[in-house]
C-alpha cells in the first residue's frame, strides 16, 4: 500500500516538473502577444513593419530599418563565419596531425563558452578604433558583422566538426583505400553525407547572431537608419529593445514588445525549417 502511494507521489512530482517545463513556452509567447496587442491590429502592424521611421516621441514606431539591420548583420556574419568554420573543421579532421587536433579541439570548445560581452568589449577596444582610423565613426555595420562573425565562428566549427565524425568513421578507410585525395574525400564523400547536419547547425548560428544584443550595442553605433555602406552605424532590433526598455511607456513599450515578438517569430520559423528538414539540433 505504502509502496503504491510512494509510486503515486513520485509520478505526481515528476509529472508536475515536466508539466512546468513543457508549459513554460506558453506564458512567454502569451505575454509577448498580450503586451504587443495594441500594435497587432492589421493597420498598425502593417505601419510598424513597413515604416522605417522610429521616432518614439512623435509616436512613430517603424521597425523596418532595424529589421533590415538585424537580418543584414546576421546574414553577413554568417556568410563570413560559415565557410571559415567549415574549412577549419576540415583542416582539423583531414589535414592536421592527430596531435594538433587533440590540442585544438578543447580550445574550440573553450572559445565557444566565452561570454558575448567579452567579444563586444574586444570589438569596442580594438576593432572600433581601427575602423575609425580608416572610416569614422568606427562603430558601424562592419564592426558588428566582424564581432558577430568571430562570436559564431567557434560554434560553426564545432557543429561541422561534430557532423563530420560519423562519415569519417564510416567512409574514411574506403576513401583512403581508393586513394582519393583529402580534398576529394571531403568534397565527394564526407560533405554529401554531412551537408544537412552542417547546414542545420549553421542556420542555428544565424539565430544566435540575430539574438545577440549587448555585443552589438557596444560596436554597432546604434543609429536607426538603412545602412548606406559598411561603415555606417546601424541599430538592430535587439539593440533597440536593450537601449530603450528602461524608459519606454505606452505605445513605445508596446512597440518594443512587438520587436520581441518579431524576433521570436523569426526564431520559430528557423527552428521549424530545421525540424522539417529532419536535422538533429
Amino acid at each position, binding site marked *: 500500500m505504502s509502496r503504491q502511494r*510512494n509510486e503515486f507521489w*513520485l509520478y505526481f512530482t*515528476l509529472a508536475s*516538473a*515536466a508539466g512546468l*517545463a*513543457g*508549459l*513554460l*513556452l506558453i*506564458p*512567454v509567447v502569451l*505575454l*509577448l502577444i498580450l503586451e504587443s496587442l495594441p500594435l497587432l491590429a492589421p493597420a498598425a502592424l502593417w505601419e510598424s513593419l513597413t515604416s522605417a521611421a522610429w521616432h518614439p516621441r512623435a509616436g512613430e514606431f517603424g521597425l523596418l530599418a532595424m529589421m533590415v539591420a538585424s537580418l543584414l548583420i546576421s546574414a553577413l556574419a554568417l556568410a563570413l563565419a560559415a565557410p*571559415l*568554420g567549415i*574549412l*577549419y573543421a*576540415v*583542416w582539423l579532421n*583531414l*589535414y*592536421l*596531425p592527430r596531435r594538433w587536433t587533440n590540442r*585544438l579541439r578543447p580550445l574550440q*570548445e*573553450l572559445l565557444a*563558452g*566565452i*561570454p*558575448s*560581452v*567579452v567579444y*563586444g*568589449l*574586444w570589438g569596442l*577596444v580594438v576593432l572600433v578604433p581601427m575602423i575609425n582610423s580608416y572610416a569614422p565613426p568606427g562603430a558601424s555595420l562592419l564592426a558588428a558583422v566582424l564581432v558577430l562573425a568571430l562570436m559564431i565562428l*567557434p560554434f560553426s566549427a564545432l557543429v561541422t566538426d561534430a557532423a563530420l565524425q560519423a562519415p569519417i568513421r564510416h567512409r574514411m578507410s574506403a576513401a583512403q583505400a581508393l586513394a582519393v*585525395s*583529402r*580534398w*576529394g574525400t*571531403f568534397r565527394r564523400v564526407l560533405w554529401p553525407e554531412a551537408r544537412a547536419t552542417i547546414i542545420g547547425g549553421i542556420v542555428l548560428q544565424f539565430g544566435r547572431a*540575430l*539574438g*545577440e544584443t*549587448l555585443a552589438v*550595442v*557596444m560596436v554597432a553605433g546604434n543609429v536607426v537608419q538603412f545602412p548606406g555602406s559598411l561603415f555606417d552605424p546601424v541599430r538592430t532590433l535587439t539593440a533597440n*529593445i*536593450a537601449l530603450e526598455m*528602461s524608459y519606454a511607456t505606452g505605445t513605445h513599450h508596446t512597440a*518594443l*514588445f512587438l520587436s*520581441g515578438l518579431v524576433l*521570436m517569430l523569426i*526564431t520559430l520559423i528557423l*527552428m521549424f525549417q530545421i*525540424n522539417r528538414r529532419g536535422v538533429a*539540433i
Partner: protein
Amino acid sequence: MTIDRRDYGGFVLCSVAGITVIVPLVWMILALAQSGLPGLEWEFLVAAPSQSGRAGGIGPMIVSTALILGVCLAAIIPVGLGTSLYLSQYVSSTSPQASWLGYSLDVLAGTPSIVFALFGYQFFAITLGLGFSILAGGLTLACMTLPLMVRTSEQALRAVPLELHQAGEALALSRPGMIWHVLLPAAMPGIVAGTILSIGRALAETAVLLFTAGYVMRLPGSLLDSGRALSVHIFDMAMNVPGGMPVASRTALVLLTLVILINIGVRRMLLHHKRIYYEQTN
C-alpha cells in the same frame, strides 16, 4: 603525415581558413590579458567599487553573480531533473507528450535572450512584483537555461547501461528505489556536467540580467535586492563609465577565467564518466 601533391590546393585553402579562425580569437584573449592583467590583484576581487566602479574592486558583483546563479540552480535542478526523469521513465521518446516537450524546449533554447529579458521584466519584476532583484534575475535565467539542463540530464539518464536496469529489476526494486539507488548515481557525472554547462550559459548572459536583476553596485542584503552581475559590470564599465575600460577588461578576465575553469571541470567529469562506463561494459 605527408600531404599528397594533389592536395596542396586544399591544404593551403584549409590552412589559411584555419589560421584565420585561430588568430583573431587568440588575439582577442591576448589583448584582453594585456589591458586587464595589470591591477588584477586579490584586492580587486574582494573590495567594494568606488568612483562609480573606476576604483576599488568587484567584490559585490561576485557575490551578486553567485546569488543569481544560486537562485537559477535552485529552480532548474529540481524542475530539470524531474522533467528528464519523467521523460526517461514514464513516456517513450516518440510519444506526443515527449515530442511536445522536446519541441517547446527546443524553441525556448533557440529564443533570443532579449525576449527572455522582456518576459522576465514584465512577468517576474512587474506582474509578480519582485522588482529589479536577484530573485527575478535568477528565475529569468532559469527559464533560459532549463532546456539545456533537461536535455543534458535526459541524455545522461538514457545512457545508463541496460545491465544496471536489469540488475535493479532482478532485485525487485521499486521505481523510487530504482531512481534513487541506480539511475541517479549512474547518471550523476552527466547530470553534473549538464548543470555546470547551464552555469556557464548563465554566467555569460548579460542582456537578461540588465533588465531583471538590475545594476546596483551595492552588496545585496537579500534576494529581493538588486544586484549587478559580472557580465553587466563589464558592459556598464565599458559603455557608460568614462575611464572604466581597464576595470572592464579586468572583470572580463575574471569572468573568462571562471568560464575556462568550468570548461575544464566539465571535460574532466565527462572523461571520468566515459572511463567508468567503459569499465562497466567491458
